[in-house]
């Protein structure tokens, strides 16, 4: 079991284990887990061991080592890697190898992390259960009859199953936080623009953001230090200094911090009693640590999901136009005699049902005569939603609420009911629409023993504040130290 990046670093520094031994342990754990959980789409034992060897050699030679030296990490299969396929869990990109590394991958390599493989996801990150993957479903390590959530279900399950201490996910409407909640791990969606999107295969460009998944806030801080920062290749990345996030996790004293509770959201229909209980419990813990708790409201909350489900598919319909069979990816066979037939067949065969649904919704929402009614109206509502956040953060330092309406649901329960699946995003899409950072933390268990997540949200670029409160919460609770039974 490899469950803490900080521990892996300590073991190597103390000479208790080499990077190669750690990599081998990770690869053995992956092999054992894969047949049960199917968290990975691609694993490369040889290259992981080879890069671990290089790190051991550097250490032996006394050369300077990166911040993640010898730490095994799994990355969601939506991030471009030049030495592994990048498929987005789609038939369309089965076997596709990009000629370049995403910026975050370059940064991981520069930090001497050991990339063990690519993790399973909903196709093109569209879904909340990892059931739309073309590479089979991923199972929740806490209960294999249940979903790990999605779309970063593989990345969250890979950590929860103890195969790696860290993984990278992406979050467009909750895709890091919801699976983290379902899998009992800690997941951070940074501020939009905090982490470069260069090399992240786009789903909805104005909402997508890359972030860390780990057992603890402390490990998330470690990974944030490596991946955050301005990059000229992403025009939407923010040219702002990057603090040392690990410093934020040193104090547990929350005195002077005002935390707003999204009380209204707890009254929402369909919310599980165990979720309400966990949030109430978290309020108590944070108050005990010194935080002042007040009630706040984000008045346009009921428009979050409809707004999101216009903007995200609109952008997706455009972003996914490039998969036409002409240049790379899946192309329909010989029978396609003309260009239009080739396009239609390639896309019909290459994309799954959920991706097609969203392309159609988005195409419709951007069409002449409908754009004003849908896309342009959604942009206006998005501005109102941002305004709500600005108003709330003028009163409080952080927002506290649930991540999901229920704990992990059964595999197959919602996969044929898109509306039910979309409602999984009820509490998470606000942070994406507003561009603010948010974190999901283990906050308890339901009576069946399934993990429950609680969510903290902070103003733009206040990841340190989030990690400070999260780390303090974890110093006072032991939910993040619980492990699923093997």
């Amino acid at each position, binding site marked *: 079991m490899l469950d803490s990046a900080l521990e892996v670093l300590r073991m190597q520094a103390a000479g208790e284990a080499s990077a190669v031994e750690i990599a081998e342990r990770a690869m053995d754990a992956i092999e054992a887990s894969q047949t049960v959980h199917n968290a990975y789409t691609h694993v490369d034992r040889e290259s992981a061991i080879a890069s671990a060897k290089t790190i051991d050699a550097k250490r032996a030679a006394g050369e300077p080592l990166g911040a993640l030296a010898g730490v095994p990490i799994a990355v969601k299969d939506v991030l471009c890697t030049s030495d592994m396929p990048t498929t987005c869990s789609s038939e369309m990109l089965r076997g596709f190898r990009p000629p370049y590394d995403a910026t975050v991958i370059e940064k991981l390599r520069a930090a001497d992390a050991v990339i063990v493989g690519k993790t399973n996801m909903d196709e093109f990150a569209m879904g909340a259960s990892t059931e739309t993957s073309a590479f089979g479903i991923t199972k929740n390590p806490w209960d294999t009859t249940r979903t790990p959530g999605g779309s970063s279900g593989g990345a969250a399950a890979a950590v929860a199953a103890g195969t790696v201490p860290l993984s990278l996910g992406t979050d467009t409407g909750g895709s890091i936080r919801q699976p983290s909640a379902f899998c009992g791990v800690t997941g951070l969606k940074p501020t939009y623009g905090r982490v470069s999107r260069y090399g992240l295969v786009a789903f909805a460009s104005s909402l997508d953001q890359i972030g860390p998944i780990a057992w603890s806030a402390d490990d998330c801080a470690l990974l944030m230090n490596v991946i955050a920062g301005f990059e*000229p290749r992403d025009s939407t990345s923010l040219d702002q200094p990057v603090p040392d996030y690990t410093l934020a996790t040193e104090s547990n004293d929350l005195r002077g911090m005002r935390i707003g509770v999204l009380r209204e959201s707890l009254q929402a229909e369909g919310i599980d009693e165990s979720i309400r209980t966990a949030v109430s419990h978290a309020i108590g813990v944070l108050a005990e640590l010194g935080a002042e708790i007040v009630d706040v409201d984000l008045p346009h909350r009921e428009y979050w999901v409809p707004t999101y489900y216009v903007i995200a598919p609109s952008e997706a319909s455009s972003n996914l136009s490039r998969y036409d069979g002409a*240049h790379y990816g899946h192309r329909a066979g010989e029978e396609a005699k003309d260009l239009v037939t080739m396009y239609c067949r390639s896309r019909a065969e290459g994309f799954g049902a959920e991706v097609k649904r969203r392309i159609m919704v988005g195409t419709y929402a951007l069409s002449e005569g409908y754009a004003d009614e849908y896309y342009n109206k959604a942009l206006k509502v998005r501005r109102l939603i941002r305004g709500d956040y600005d108003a709330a953060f003028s009163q409080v330092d952080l927002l506290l609420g649930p991540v999901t309406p229920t704990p992990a649901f059964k595999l197959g329960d919602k996969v044929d009911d898109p509306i039910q699946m979309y409602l999984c995003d009820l509490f998470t899409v606000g942070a994406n629409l507003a561009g603010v950072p948010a974190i999901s933390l283990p906050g308890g268990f339901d009576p069946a023993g399934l993990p429950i997540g609680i969510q903290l949200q902070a103003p733009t670029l206040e990841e340190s504040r989030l990690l400070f409160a999260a780390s303090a919460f974890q110093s006072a609770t032991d939910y993040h130290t619980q492990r699923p039974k093997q």
Partner: protein
Amino acid sequence: MSQLPTTTIIGLEVHVQLKTATKLFCGCSTKFGSPPNTQVCPVCLGLPGALPVINEHAIELAIRAGLAIRCDIPPLTKWDRKQYFYPDLPKGYQISQFDLPICADGCLEITDPADPDAIRRIGIIRAHLEEDAGKSMHDEAAGRADSRIDLNRCGTPLLEIVSEPDMRTADEALAYLIKLKEIMTHLGVSDCEMQEGSLRVDANVNLHIDKHGQRIATPIVEVKNMNSFRNVAAALDYEVERQYAEWEETGHTIQTHGKRTFGWDDVKCVTYPQREKEESADYRYFPCPDLLPIRIPRERVEQIRASLGETPEETRERLQSQYGIKAYDADVIVSQGRAMVEYFDAAAMASGDGKRTSSWIQQDVMRTLKEQGSDIESFGVSAEQLGKLLSKVKAGELTNDRARDVFKHVSENGGGIEDAIKALGIEAVDDSEMESLVKELLAANPKVVDDVKNGNQKAVGSLIGQARGKNPNANPQKIREIALRLIDQA
């Protein structure tokens, strides 16, 4: 033919390729003519995960162009995606500008082709930036239907300049294009080479027919694929005839048939209907989420305006008044672009003889550039050297022929004027030496002496050739003077 009175309505959309070293959204070269798919990267190939980054130089050039055609440069401009499927468009959308173009509401004044004393003012609706697509090459030889795609051009910056439908004849359209090209090349905004595709024209044309006081508009035709200005004019003239005939035959109007796209066949000299692009009906424009809107501060616009310098007309007028050269000569120099004007200015200053400099530039300099296939910026004879050379000619130190030898020597071997003069063995011949040479020749040519004495001064000419045969540095003017003086004294 009893034709009803008609008015031709013409509007032009001109794409000029901006003269940037790299593409609009990535660092790939924009060089023309490289092997297919050698100037590409993940960004211009539209690979998954790649993101565009704006080329600041393109913004600069677009503003320059916009100011020169009297456009407003609004403080905010943004990027939009124009979506359609085509194999030479690898992202499935083109990054362009929809509702907030970088330049808006300008005009271009042309001389009325029907009245040289009148000015026609052609409105410009907008000029916006966009990325170019690649090139599809359809190889249907031998029954194969292979299509090949070259993406080198993909992502090259274009400025699309859209005129108001203010032109009424093909000649006006031609005058507009010539003027626009002159401004863009003069400002260094674009090469405007139609053969290389760095200037492309789409013409929109229809007729307003006056049928006994009732105005009938024929369907608008957009003509594409014209590869020269001459063809644009020919296509417009053709459309005027064709649309009238079509209306007489079918009665189609803009209400019944709207707008159509035609191509131009420059072999048969006819227009022909083109198949519309897939889904051209709805491009589903929306703001590109990968690029931030651009704020263009007033100060930046004013800075660029201040750097524009004089317009081609102003330059033409100045060259005529400052150097006393003819309108035609000024026009030739200005049409070569700003670099040539600067070269001429510097050379004429140094030579102190504008007319001589103008004629040398139009003959020797332009011919040599053509032979060397180079441009004035990298030409081996600097403006100062040419000026110095011509000042020597003016002072009578060098003959035109010898000056040409020096010019050729410098342009081929480099080095200075003095070095070339030395290398060619040119030296001034002193007067006493010259006098004895002429005496010698007069003694040997008594017939010349007689002819001159009988009033035929031209007879001296035959001595000049002989003198230069004996000493190539002999100055013909000097020989003539000395010979006449000696004969007169004899």
